[in-house]
């Protein structure tokens, strides 16, 4: 592409050549490009899973992880992730979304040792993050809807997200996370959503992660 640009002397022509070069590279590449988001309720392990995928295919984490709710308060992305599984190659942008909630109360954060000011700032940032995440849903190609297998899955946030993705005809996989915990019941998630693909995993231990990669490869191909 650099050689191609070098044939042109002025910068306008070089820019045009660069654009044409980019189009050629994309056409010549066999890899599909996809924006894959991780979305779901708060504290379901989205960032832990994003980090695992990032480490497995790009050697880099995506987000910070914490037990305090709303740790991810702005969209975190990792670009050019070279995903390969079962002959499927994808150039993924991993988008780790803030957790979606219908309520944000700063008092909740004080239970985790934050002072009033820190808690109020966190709450304000969390509300902005939720708005940002909902807007970003329009720009994704594939979604991993991450649910916590230790909770009942009927929460309206889950139903709303799945309904919205279905209406937008965006492909998605339900990830039944936290199977390492003794009280986990991924079967309940499967029973609740029998019409959808449900993959039980533990993002923390890696159990079931290959099944998830197979499901991503299958849905992308």
């Amino acid at each position: 592409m650099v050689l191609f640009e070098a044939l042109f002397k002025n910068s306008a022509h070089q820019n045009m050549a660069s654009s044409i070069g980019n189009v050629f590279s994309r056409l010549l590449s066999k890899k599909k490009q996809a924006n894959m988001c991780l979305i779901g309720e708060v504290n379901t392990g989205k960032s832990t899973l994003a980090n695992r995928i990032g480490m497995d295919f790009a050697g880099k984490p995506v987000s910070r992880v914490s037990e305090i709710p709303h740790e991810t308060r702005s969209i975190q992305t990792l670009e050019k992730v070279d995903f390969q599984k079962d002959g499927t190659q994808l150039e993924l942008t991993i988008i780790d979304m803030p957790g979606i909630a219908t309520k944000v109360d700063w008092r909740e954060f004080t239970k985790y040792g934050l002072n009033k000011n820190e808690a109020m700032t966190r709450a304000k940032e969390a509300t902005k993050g939720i708005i940002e995440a909902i807007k970003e849903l329009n720009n994704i190609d594939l979604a991993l809807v991450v649910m916590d297998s230790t909770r009942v899955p009927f929460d309206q946030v889950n139903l709303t997200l799945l309904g919205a993705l279905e209406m937008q005809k965006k492909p998605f996989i339900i990830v039944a996370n936290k199977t390492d915990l003794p009280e986990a019941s991924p079967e309940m998630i499967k029973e609740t959503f029998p019409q959808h693909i449900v993959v039980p995993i533990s993002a923390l231990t890696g159990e079931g992660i290959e099944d998830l990669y197979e499901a991503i490869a299958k849905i992308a191909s």
Partner: protein
Amino acid sequence: MSSSVVRVDFIPEVTVEKLSLPNRLDLILDSVANNKVVVIEKALEPQEELALIQKTMERVDADKFTGIKLFSLKSKVNNGKSFFSKTKELTFSVIAPSDAVQVTDINGILSLSIAQ
């Protein structure tokens, strides 16, 4: 009105249909912010629910308003066994103040537990 009394507003489908989405969401949130429970005949669509969550987050205020409880219920009812019988979908949404009301669905029965 005593603080232990929670008012429930039922909004019929005809009223909902007359309103644009932003006006519908404002009506819901104005009521919920005033500690009322809103029941809407004809449930919100998932995209409308996302818009409601977005608008709720814009309104969250440290002490006055922390958010909502949202629940949509959908069930199909058949009015007979004949060939010409029609299946009607009954749907409604319940939107309540997050602190005052607990909304649960147990075996298809919707329960509102109101804090005293």
